[in-house]
């Protein structure tokens, strides 16, 4: 699977949230999408997921243009927004079963229990999502995408609500996705964690891509590019 954007742009009224974004994602890429607040990270994720239409430019999956109405490509795309996209008054297991059926994936009891166990939620499968904490909801979201196995997974600030073991679970899952040829894009303000995990970093600033490189060690060009967004006194 190959994903690319060509001169992608999004305007809200007279305000350009994104402009001229040209990116290529190869199988196995784990991209950290970084930038200050309002840089356009979430807008870019929503455009890549087809949740919003572009003002200009295109998103292409294996050469085929992808628009919000393109249903046939949708089973390949996942979007993990912590504590979101789950029905509060369905149980954890019912949520997984519902989305598995929607994506045409095996939603039998064994598969659901297996994925709940993987995120340490096996004992809470019969609880309503409304009763789970934000961290547990995020774990359930991880279980959901483990079950649905998308080829292209987008994550919006996944670290904020997870504890240490939750972060480990998430990162193991993302590494496994990439090892199987998946593409992962993770937008985060937890720079250290994102950089440790990624194979590539993209920096957005005022809606434009200002940096796009594969990971190196050391990485002076990244330090220079990102330095201006760090708080004073930070290094």
């Amino acid at each position, binding site marked *: 699977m190959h994903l690319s954007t060509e001169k992608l742009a999004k305007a809200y009224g007279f305000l350009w949230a994104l402009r001229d974004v040209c990116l290529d994602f190869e199988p196995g890429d784990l991209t950290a999408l970084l930038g200050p607040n309002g840089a356009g990270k979430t807008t870019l994720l929503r455009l890549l997921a087809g*949740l919003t239409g572009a003002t200009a430019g295109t998103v292409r999956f294996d050469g085929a243009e992808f628009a919000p*109405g393109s249903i046939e490509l949708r089973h390949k795309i996942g979007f993990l927004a912590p*504590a*979101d*996209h789950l*029905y509060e008054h369905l149980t954890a297991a019912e949520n997984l079963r519902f*989305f598995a059926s*929607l994506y045409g994936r095996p939603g039998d009891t064994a598969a659901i229990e297996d994925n709940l166990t993987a995120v340490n939620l096996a004992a809470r499968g019969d609880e309503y999502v409304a009763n789970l904490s934000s961290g547990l909801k995020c774990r359930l979201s991880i279980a959901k995408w483990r079950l649905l196995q998308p080829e292209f997974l987008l994550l919006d600030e996944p670290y904020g609500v997870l504890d240490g073991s939750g972060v480990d679970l998430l990162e193991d899952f993302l590494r496994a996705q990439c090892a199987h040829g998946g593409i992962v894009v993770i937008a985060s303000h937890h720079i250290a964690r994102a950089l440790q995990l990624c194979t590539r970093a993209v920096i957005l600033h005022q809606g434009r891509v200002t940096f796009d490189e594969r990971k190196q060690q050391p990485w002076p060009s990244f330090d220079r590019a990102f330095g201006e967004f760090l708080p004073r006194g930070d290094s």
Partner: protein
Amino acid sequence: MTLVKQTALLLWKDLRLELRRRESLMTMFFFGTLLLFVFHFSFDLPPDRVAEMTPALLWLAFLFTGTLGLAQLFNAERENHCLDALLLSPLDRGALFLAKTGFNLVLMLLVEVVVIPLFWILFNLSSWNLLPQIFLVSLLGTVGFCSLGTLMAAITLRARARELLLPLILFPLMIPVILATIRCMENVLRVGEFGEAFAWLRLLLGFDVIFLTVGVLIFDHVIES
């Protein structure tokens, strides 16, 4: 086949959520019943005006009750941005339209099953033998109301004052359905059989088919715009 399966899946989910939350049905049921009591205390229904007034009063109650249900139709999807989760999935948008229409239809029919006999009791009407025909006309009218209402509820989904906006754009478009239903019921109550009402019944059926088909075809544009 996928459309039917996905519609059934979404409908199962909505009915299960409603059974647990009991928000829409309870509100609609109590509001519908309350309206009947208001009508009962406000109007004296003379026997010679039953055929003329009953359909209008009944449909006034159904319109307000149904609009209440439509305003809450996408509440479960608004919570936790679940609508995004549905739009992200390979779901046929037509299935979402059919499921939401079906869900509102189930709620309205449950309300009607209680409200129509209650109307007959409160206004001391004797024509109980005509209830099957009245239910049939009501069913066709409700299908039209729910299909057009679901479309309008989706259009106003992201509007700030959607509760106000929904009836403002829905009621004028509903005029053909309301007119056909009321005329049809009036004929049944006056003559005791469908007779001349068949023309209105065909019109009503035509509206239902058109609204359902248009809804399935354009719902992807409506919900994603």
